């Protein structure tokens, strides 16, 4: 595969765009015409060729620009990356997992050469060529977690496991859906999920925790989550809410198709071998409503989901005020025909949109 890396921005002039290939492989999160929380886990052991599920850590056309955006966020706010002292071993585990996975999955982009503890890492897209001693913190320019996650798309939470719970004891978080690592650092699974509505009552978190505690080496898992974002912003953090929150009010019926994005998180979970910690990469994919409705099935379904979602969820996900405007646009792409089950666009079998004549 030959990836053409985009030169684009996720701020200011928002030159971010999705190619046709990126649209075709977008991880649309709704498998039916409605949405409610569920633990919805599956094994993360590959997926269809060229889908975002195929590789352990998906690298796409946004890679280089996303890493540039992360660098800017970290320069402004170093607390986006934190690791409590006992998490360094887990950081090395993560560095090894990513370097081994990427060099095996994308040999044309990444190389890892190991002679005992002497490692040589080549990252061609970012122009990095470093030699270091594995498990020797002094031989890298950053701690091991920060070093490798400055080179990997997605946020990373590194969770310590003890007392039958998971603890947010390390992470790098610059592409988040309005939550703060600096606020959550050191919290346990129930504490950091406390703000989520409805799910506690449904026992979702108890079941999810039980599942996560039992994720074992060699058997990673994945799920999708989603929200809405105005403008292709990666950094929708509480720290910067004063900058991006106001942009939600810039939406108009005229600009909505291009300005309103569905934000999907591909969340994966890997047990780390030396530390017994759990790493939780959260990879963000953005797609404009305009690109979504280019797939007839996705257009029909997104309209029904946004229309029928409980008010608490629309509020929590931050689009309750814009919902009427979103529905006005999306309703034009819902002709009432039934949709096929599952997340895939089924472009060759789903009927084209019947244009309304009224």
């Amino acid at each position, binding site marked *: 595969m030959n990836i053409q890396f985009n030169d684009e921005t996720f701020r200011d002039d928002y030159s971010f765009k999705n190619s046709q290939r990126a649209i075709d492989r977008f991880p649309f999160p709704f*498998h039916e015409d409605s949405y409610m929380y569920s633990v919805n886990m599956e094994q993360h*052991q590959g997926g269809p060729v060229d889908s975002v599920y195929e590789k352990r850590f998906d690298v796409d056309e946004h890679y280089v620009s996303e890493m540039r955006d992360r660098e800017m966020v970290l320069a402004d706010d170093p607390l986006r990356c934190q690791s409590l002292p006992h998490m360094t071993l887990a950081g090395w585990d993560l560095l090894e997992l990513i370097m081994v996975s990427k060099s095996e999955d994308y040999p044309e982009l990444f190389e890892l050469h190991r002679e005992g503890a002497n490692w040589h890492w080549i990252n061609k897209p970012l122009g990095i060529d470093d030699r270091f001693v594995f498990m020797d913190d002094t031989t890298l320019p950053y701690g091991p977690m920060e070093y490798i996650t400055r080179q990997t798309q997605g946020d990373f939470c590194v969770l310590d496991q003890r007392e039958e719970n998971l603890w947010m004891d390390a992470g790098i978080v610059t592409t988040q859906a309005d939550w703060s690592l600096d606020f959550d650092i050191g919290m346990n699974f129930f504490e950091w999920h406390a703000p989520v509505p409805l799910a506690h009552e449904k026992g979702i978190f108890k079941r999810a925790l039980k599942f996560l505690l039992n994720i*074992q080496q060699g*058997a990673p898992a994945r799920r999708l989550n989603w929200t809405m974002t105005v403008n292709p912003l990666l950094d929708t953090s509480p720290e910067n809410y004063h900058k991006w929150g106001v942009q939600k009010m810039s939406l108009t019926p005229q600009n909505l198709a291009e300005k309103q994005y569905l934000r999907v998180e591909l969340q994966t979970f890997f047990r780390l*071998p030396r*530390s017994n910690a759990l790493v939780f990469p959260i990879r963000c994919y953005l797609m404009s409503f305009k690109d979504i409705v280019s797939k007839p099935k996705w257009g029909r379904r997104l309209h029904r989901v946004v229309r029928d979602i409980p008010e608490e969820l629309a509020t929590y996900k931050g689009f309750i005020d814009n919902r009427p405007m979103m529905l006005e646009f999306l309703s034009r792409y819902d002709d009432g025909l039934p949709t096929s089950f599952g997340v895939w666009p089924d472009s060759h079998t789903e009927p084209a949109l019947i244009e309304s004549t009224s």
Partner: protein
Amino acid sequence: MNVPAPNSTAPKLTGAEKIDVTITAIVPLNDLVTRFEFKRSDGSLFPTFSGGAHTVVEMQDGDRKRLNPYSLMSDPANRETFAISVRRDDEGRGGSLFMHNKVKIGDPMVISYPVNLFSLDLRARKHLFIAGGIGITPFLAQIKQLVRTNGNWELHYSCRNASLGSYVDELTQKYPHSVHIHYDDEKDFIDLENLLHGQPIGTHLYVCGPKGMIEWVRSTAGAAGWPTAHIHYEEFLAPKPGKPFAVRLAKSGVTVKVGAHESLLEAIERLGVEAPYLCRGGACGQCETDVIESDGAFMHRDHWLEDEEKALGVKIMPCVSRFEGKTLVLDR
């Protein structure tokens, strides 16, 4: 995604991933304990693991398949070889006897990926290990891990007598200042109250050994005011024989007779019904099963269910627990 990609599968529930291995060494340590070393049959490297992890060893004993957990006691950084040490239990259900009497060098076997239910708390300022007999095995791997990362640790190891002290010589030679051996037959017992009293704040306590020892260490530390989160223990229970009983598996639509010497989990598996498990010793909670209907008495033996749950009779851990009575219907 509730609807997964067409070629992916739901999370695997029945045990950890498997590894094909070959027995490469069998080393008798004393009258009771023998070390077994494995290499991967395909010549590749093992995954690294964290000290305290166990592997589930599959034993094909005639037409009976046994699955027993053993702590990995080799160096976690050694990816060429995995090793376990097995104490022969002449009164047991036969897993250790199979390993001691039937396994030969060169035999192919299947073991599981490492699973850690007895992990080090890496926040600890100091790790204090209390081992009894074969309970030394998880600590052997943890010590190797801590030595590599300059960890602060101390071991108190209680054995019946010098001739049954597995790995005593190796430990005392390598770490003379950190290892303390106590022999029962010399009436040399661990002075636990004093030992706990002298520990720096931030010490974590780990115990692995016979049931009585685990209870003694936990209650002594608790009485001395140690926080529960600083007391770690691992005890794998072996399923105990009992009276045969019948169980109806509602989802699968079959009835199975559990034999006197097999566990409920083994009986379910014998019928080809997929059931989740990890430790097979009542510790991990993975095999927890809902009871739909029962008329009789449960023999709950696990460490997983709360006492209230056990009293209600609505859940059972089929790896170690049994039932006696007229009717038992499970949601499986």
